[in-house]
């Protein structure tokens, strides 16, 4: 087989609605993900098409329901409950459910709260570093306080 006879590698598939649907539900392989992301960054027209695909999905309301559940944190434990969970001081059934919420549902907000509580439980040494970070945030943001105060 000569070089000219060799099968030419096929170019990437066009970005159609099916591909955008797979993108929305995170089912694209990494190379397609990167390609779609780049195209979205470069093309306002494609971003608009993505929005159309998002809005016209058959499961739009079910998707909305998931978004609402997540956003409203319908089943997230309170911070106090998470503290009790750490101390193993909860009703076993409830504790088991929280474990499911953290490990299977992988709620990022509750995982973050739990990680923070765990860190607090361990960390008197980290206290100083935290103070200095908070000081940095204060310094960089305090000037904005005045604006808000003037409006009220």
């Amino acid at each position: 087989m000569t070089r000219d006879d060799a099968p030419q590698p096929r170019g990437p598939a066009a970005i159609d609605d099916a591909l955008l649907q797979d993108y929305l539900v995170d089912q694209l392989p990494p190379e397609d993900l990167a390609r779609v992301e780049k195209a979205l960054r470069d093309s306002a027209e494609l971003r608009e098409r993505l929005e159309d695909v998002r809005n016209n999905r058959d499961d739009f309301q079910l998707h909305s329901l998931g978004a609402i559940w997540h956003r409203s944190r319908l089943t997230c434990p309170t911070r106090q409950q998470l503290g009790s969970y750490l101390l193993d001081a909860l009703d076993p059934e409830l504790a088991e459910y929280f474990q499911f919420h953290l490990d299977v549902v992988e709620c990022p907000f509750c995982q973050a709260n739990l990680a923070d509580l765990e860190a607090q439980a361990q960390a008197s040494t980290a206290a100083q570093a935290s103070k200095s970070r908070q000081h940095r945030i204060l310094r960089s943001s305090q000037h904005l306080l005045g604006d808000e105060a003037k409006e009220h």
Partner: protein
Amino acid sequence: MSTSESDILIVRQVRAGDARAWRQLIERFEGRLLAFVDSRLRDRAASEDVVQETFIGFLTSLPHYDEKRDMEAYLFSIAAHKLTDHLRKQGRRPIDQFGSDDHGRPLDEVPGGGRAASSIARSGERRKAEERLLSESMGQLVREWLARGDYGRIRCMELLVVKGWANKDVARHLGLTEQAVASYKFQTIARLKEMARRAGLSLEDLGGA
């Protein structure tokens, strides 16, 4: 989760320019926000910057902040948005996993005209009303299930709705029959539709029941 009295008080104090209240607010939420951002970035320095941006974003959007809104959820949504911006700048895939149609961006932070015209045309008031209804109705159902300790149903619906798993995967994971999973789903959708009907709205796109 609802807004506590202390959250409302601290926001009012910050609005009045009280530096001590602002310090308290930062102390209270900084750790959990840092844990959230760092779990995704795995870059402590960058995560600290994103959290700093989050607090600045909070102050900037404060004039539009609704005190009834849960403050922690609000701060997490700003952090998710700042995280997305950070990943975009790095050319990395932004995350669309926070269960938000606006990529976690609080509406107060969405610049005017940020949404495509076609989206606005389809959505409008009807979609807002549907979302409000879904939020209230689903919240009511979940509260009922929690009150009677019906964790099996909650697990099932959370995997279907929040995680978007297929019936068969939910059944396998929870050790249920597919019929039982379908039944939980059917009952939930039927109740949501009934609540919608009473409110004079339609949730036909939910399918199922």
